[in-house]
């Protein structure tokens, strides 16, 4: 007999646990991808800032790692306790996948600690240290692909695959789409979290040198986030196409029926991200000598973006799903887009609006590069409100991940495994957008509470006493740059 969970209900409980695990895991897997690249760039370009960025971010990863595992355990317990039928369905079909996954967790844990704690000992043998980092990423990505196979299977089980044919179950129709989308999005997410961390450190920094560094780090993290963000609409389109080809009803349920309102909010979310990114560049531009000459172009960009966003979000009608009739006394015309404007509600117009936003963001960056080419960047002098843009962005990004994840799960409708294992719990139905928003909002805040804890514990509590602080930091930065820190000197 499955157990239910008091107050929250089993569904909401597993939702929150799974979501926290996903957020943390996405960061723990996504960040090392560019940490290793930054470490390499530090060596290659002889720029100590990259090394420091890599190192401080890795410290956050190490601290987040055990919370990730704890959330994963909570997720598993609720799955086994509240959804035993589904658990046994998945375990009988994917047994070897779970065993391999468990083994890889062990390897991954060893690699995370090896990579982190050998940073100084291997300061002279960078190639070996980088190799550890690459191995860490290979194992991490393999782990993610394994669990993606199970998650994708639940929505798109391959038709007629025999129970014993593990590969057919894994390589189900939406596996590759999910892999691609998550791989890219994890980097995006990691980049924005790095920017958040940098903003937090910038605002609490006490000396100019730190402020200059964290200004640069915030800019770089944001750049990683934006650079990969631009690929996501395409990756999302590929993924959605796979779902559509698998079963048109899933696509309809998402785009036109119960989840259509969720996509309107998605438009708002992605629009806010693009506006936030461009606002940050607007302020970044002003810390470049002579950058002000590009501000006029950017104002036009903002105006066009607002129009594009309005088009993207314009719903075809204000009915929550396909089965709801207008309330008594309200004519249908009050709820439906006017005939001549109907094209604004269709996919074509929305795709154009998204494309416009992406192109405009490209242009903004191009302008930034041109400004940079002709004037010096005064790192550290950016207006402090820019840091609030960097703080705001991850909030929206995390909320977006939560809402999109909810869409992906709810797309299964009243099935645990689409058309194979029916959800017979009291929570078989798609909750409303309002309820979903509340759960996703709570999950978002909870995740940032974890992050605040990590930043505080890892970077504020263990600082040297006030007087020593500035010099201590500087010494550390220099040490990281040259590899002569403490034990680093005698390491091999």
């Amino acid at each position, binding site marked *: 007999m499955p157990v239910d969970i008091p107050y929250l209900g089993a569904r909401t409980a597993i939702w929150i646990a799974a979501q926290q695990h996903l957020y943390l895991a996405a960061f723990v897997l996504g960040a090392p991808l560019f940490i290793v690249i930054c470490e390499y760039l530090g060596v290659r370009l002889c720029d100590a800032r990259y090394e420091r960025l890599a190192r401080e971010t890795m410290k956050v990863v190490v601290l987040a790692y055990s919370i990730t595992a704890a959330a994963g355990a909570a997720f598993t317990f609720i799955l086994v306790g509240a959804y035993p039928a589904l658990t046994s369905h998945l375990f009988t079909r994917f047994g070897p996948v779970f065993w391999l996954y468990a083994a890889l967790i062990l390897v991954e844990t060893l690699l995370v600690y090896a990579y982190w704690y050998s940073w100084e000992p291997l300061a002279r043998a960078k190639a070996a240290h980088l190799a550890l980092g690459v191995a860490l990423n290979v194992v991490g990505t393999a782990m993610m692909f394994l669990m993606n196979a199970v998650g994708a299977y639940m929505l798109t089980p391959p038709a007629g695959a025999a129970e014993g044919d593990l590969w057919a179950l894994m390589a189900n129709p939406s596996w590759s789409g999910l892999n691609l989308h998550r791989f890219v999005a994890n980097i995006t997410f990691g980049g924005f979290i790095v920017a958040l961390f940098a903003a937090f450190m910038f605002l609490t920094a006490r000396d100019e040198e730190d402020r200059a560094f964290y200004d640069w780090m915030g800019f770089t993290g944001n750049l990683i986030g934006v650079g990969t963000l631009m690929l996501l609409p395409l990756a999302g389109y590929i993924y959605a196409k796979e779902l559509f080809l698998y079963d048109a009803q899933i696509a309809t349920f998402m785009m036109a029926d119960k989840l259509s309102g969720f996509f309107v909010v998605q438009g708002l979310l992605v629009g806010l991200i693009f506006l936030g990114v461009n606002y940050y560049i607007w302020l970044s531009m002003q810390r470049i000598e002579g950058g002000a000459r590009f501000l006029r172009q950017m104002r036009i960009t*903002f105006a066009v973006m607002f129009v594009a966003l309005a088009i993207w979000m314009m719903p075809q009608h204000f009915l929550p799903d396909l089965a709801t009739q207008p309330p008594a006394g309200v004519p249908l015309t009050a709820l439906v887009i006017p005939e001549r404007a109907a094209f604004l509600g269709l996919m074509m117009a929305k795709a154009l609006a998204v494309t416009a936003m992406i192109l405009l963001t490209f242009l903004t960056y191009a302008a930034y590069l041109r400004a940079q080419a002709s004037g010096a960047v005064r790192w550290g002098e950016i*207006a402090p409100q820019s840091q609030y843009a960097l703080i705001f962005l991850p909030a*929206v990004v995390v909320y977006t991940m939560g809402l999109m994840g909810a869409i992906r799960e709810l797309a299964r409708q009243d099935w645990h495994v689409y058309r194979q294992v029916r959800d017979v719990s009291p929570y078989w139905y798609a909750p409303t957008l309002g309820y979903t928003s509340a759960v996703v909002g709570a999950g978002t805040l909870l995740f940032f509470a974890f992050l605040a804890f990590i930043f505080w514990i890892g970077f504020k509590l263990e600082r040297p006493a006030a007087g020593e602080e500035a010099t201590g930091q500087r010494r550390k930065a220099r040490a990281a740059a040259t590899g002569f820190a403490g034990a680093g000197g005698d390491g091999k």
Partner: protein
Amino acid sequence: MRMAARRRWWCDQLLRHPLAGAAGLLILIWAGLPLVPEASGLHFSVRYRLFLSAFAVAGGLFFALLRLERVPAPRSGWGVLGSVAAVYLAAVGLLVVVGSVYPQYGLPRAGSAVETDSPAGRGKALFWDPSVGCFQCHTFGGAGGQRGPDLSRVAAVAGTRQPGVSAQEYILGHIGGGSSYFTVPGYPPIMPPFGQRLSPEQQEALLAFLLAGP
């Protein structure tokens, strides 16, 4: 030349007073748009005007934000933490509010549980059952999706689709075989076959429901 200069002056004024610009847009939306005659096909209802107003206001606020001078950073660690928390509560709060004011559907949708005596009644329940999903693609009696044809009057056309095939036979064949049985011109062949998924009794029930009409 004078024209260009004047236009530039207006642009500058707008940028200097973005909130006034937003107010102007609001006047346009609430005093101008309602004058557009219904017959033009461009008459935006109150809900759409509210939707557009939200963008006008947000745009005004955003451009006002661009004019903001350098704000000082908080001085203590707690000040930073507090301001960060405020940003998060505001951002997440805004998103939750938007999600909550958007039209919500009822919970849960009457579906699988409905059992009635007549075949047409059972067919109706099946038609609106989310796990069967006819309504996701088909409109019936004014509600439903638009990917497939409106089925409100399918009883009348079903007998004419294929020479020598009766309405009953055609509808049953279409349910059983989906688009591979027959594809109505002008529609994509995306209807899945339900022959395996639904029992013969269920298919008969759907037939009775469709023949009875709304």
